[in-house]
């Protein structure tokens, strides 16, 4: 991938942010009334609602600055490193020389930047197994001091965990009760239709019985 191919990312929280504008505390309360989740979970959602709202707003607001300033710089370093990782022993010195900068850049990746997280996911397994890199095919593997092989993996896993927790928290606080309410409404509508069928059955049975009685009379 080149810099030109790096996908321009819109704010990943745009939709959630717009949804938040409509999800007032009152609307959330209405959803919670219908939702089948436990009272304990409901209390937790009420407690987390303001924090989640604030977190999403902050993350959303900081996206523009990150996208314009940080992202291109990080991507450029990661892309150069990606090319060096696939190069032969002639690039060994450059490769070793760049790893500290890559680590610094990786630490600055926004956890919701899926394109750069993907780039990091391509890089860290290669860095973790330097023996498998063409640059070190001569068997001269750099020491841990020169090549902190697990560091990029640690950064990726920490960021991945943070992103997952943030998204799970957003879902559980903002959408869970709404989806459950929608599911309950659909089930209720189906139950209503089934009840009409049963009522009509009763009507038919009643008409049949009435007809038999009238015939006898």
């Amino acid at each position, binding site marked *: 991938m080149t810099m030109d191919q790096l996908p321009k990312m819109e704010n*990943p929280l745009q*939709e*959630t942010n717009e*949804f938040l504008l*409509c999800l007032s505390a009152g609307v959330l309360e209405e959803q919670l009334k219908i939702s089948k989740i436990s009272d304990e979970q409901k209390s937790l959602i009420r407690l987390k609602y303001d924090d989640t709202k604030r977190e999403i707003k902050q993350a959303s607001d900081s996206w523009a600055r990150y996208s314009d300033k940080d992202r291109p710089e990080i991507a450029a370093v990661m892309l150069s490193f990606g090319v060096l990782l696939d190069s032969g022993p002639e690039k060994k010195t450059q490769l070793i020389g760049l790893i500290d900068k890559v680590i610094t850049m990786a630490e600055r990746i926004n956890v*919701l930047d*899926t394109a750069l*997280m*993907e780039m*990091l*996911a*391509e890089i*860290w*397994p*290669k860095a*973790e*197994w330097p*023996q*498998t890199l063409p640059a070190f095919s001569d068997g001269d593997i750099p020491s*841990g001091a020169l090549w902190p092989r*697990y560091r990029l*993996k640690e950064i*990726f*896993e920490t960021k*991945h*965990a943070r*992103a*997952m*927790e943030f*998204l*799970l928290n*957003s*879902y559980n606080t*903002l*959408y*869970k009760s*709404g*989806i*459950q309410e*929608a*599911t309950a*409404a*659909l*089930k209720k*509508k*189906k139950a209503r*239709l*089934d009840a*009409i*069928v049963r009522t*009509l*059955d009763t*009507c*038919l049975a009643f*008409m049949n019985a009435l*007809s038999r009685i009238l015939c006898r009379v």
Partner: protein
Amino acid sequence: MKHHASTPVSGLFISLIALTSSCTSTRNYSKFAEAGSAYSAVVASLADKASVLQVDGTSYELLAKRAELMGSGGGSERRNPQNDKGKPEKEGRSKRLGQMLIQANEKDVAAIHRNRLAKAVASDLKEYFDALGALASSDAPAGIGKKAGDIITRLNDDIRRADPVIPVSSSGMISPLVNHMTEAMLRDELQQRKQTIEGALEVFRLLNMQIETDIAGHASENDRGFRQMLITEPFINGGSQAIREPADISSWIQYRQSSLNGNSKAAEADKIIDGSRKSYASFRSALDRMTTGRQELSIEELGHLFDEIVVFSKSVNSL
């Protein structure tokens, strides 16, 4: 008089047909719900795969760290059994290895827990689409149509018996009317909650992308770890990891075969990610078309969407 009474009924019937034919049919909603349910289920299995790859990746990492700690190939301890410093060194190493394993286990348990929570999100959405599908494919509207039709027929017979000139209603009206009501109910349901469903799906998509990226990284790690720990290390190192016994030799040959000849988890992961993104894009576009009503989705298109998700599901299971 009879003729006069049937005219508005025919008019109503024609307008009802027109109204019904302009809407997405219950069959379409049912197929759409089926696709949504299948997609949610596949993402749930994707979360399971992520957990498996995570644990395997950590195991390779642990083995590599252990080899580093024990010295190249893990053979140094064997070479100096009588060394005076050997015992405290060995104890220190054992302690560090124990701590390393505990930390790795904790990290993996936390990752598995997060993947389980992601599965719970998938399960919420699956339940929603299942409920939508149950309403769309319910035989209650047909039952209502038939039973109400029977009641009207009976009433008509009784009316005719009492007075043959009194106009009677058409019993065939009920079925299309109830069908239309169900379709309207489904459409309203999707439109009213469009923002919630879209928002939840968007978070679900971001979660799914995180899981995919995690899978891609760990699949590549697994491949590299596999090659290094099971093929290269036993081949180049002496000591405990040497290929000595016939069983070791046989395993090594097998490992090498599977590693070089199509056992690449990274390649499978790439296919899965590609399938996942295509499925999501098709599904999201279907949702837009179902809720805006700007462009009707044919049952064939929905069938194609469902097939696409089934193919994706198969590739997830192959990893």
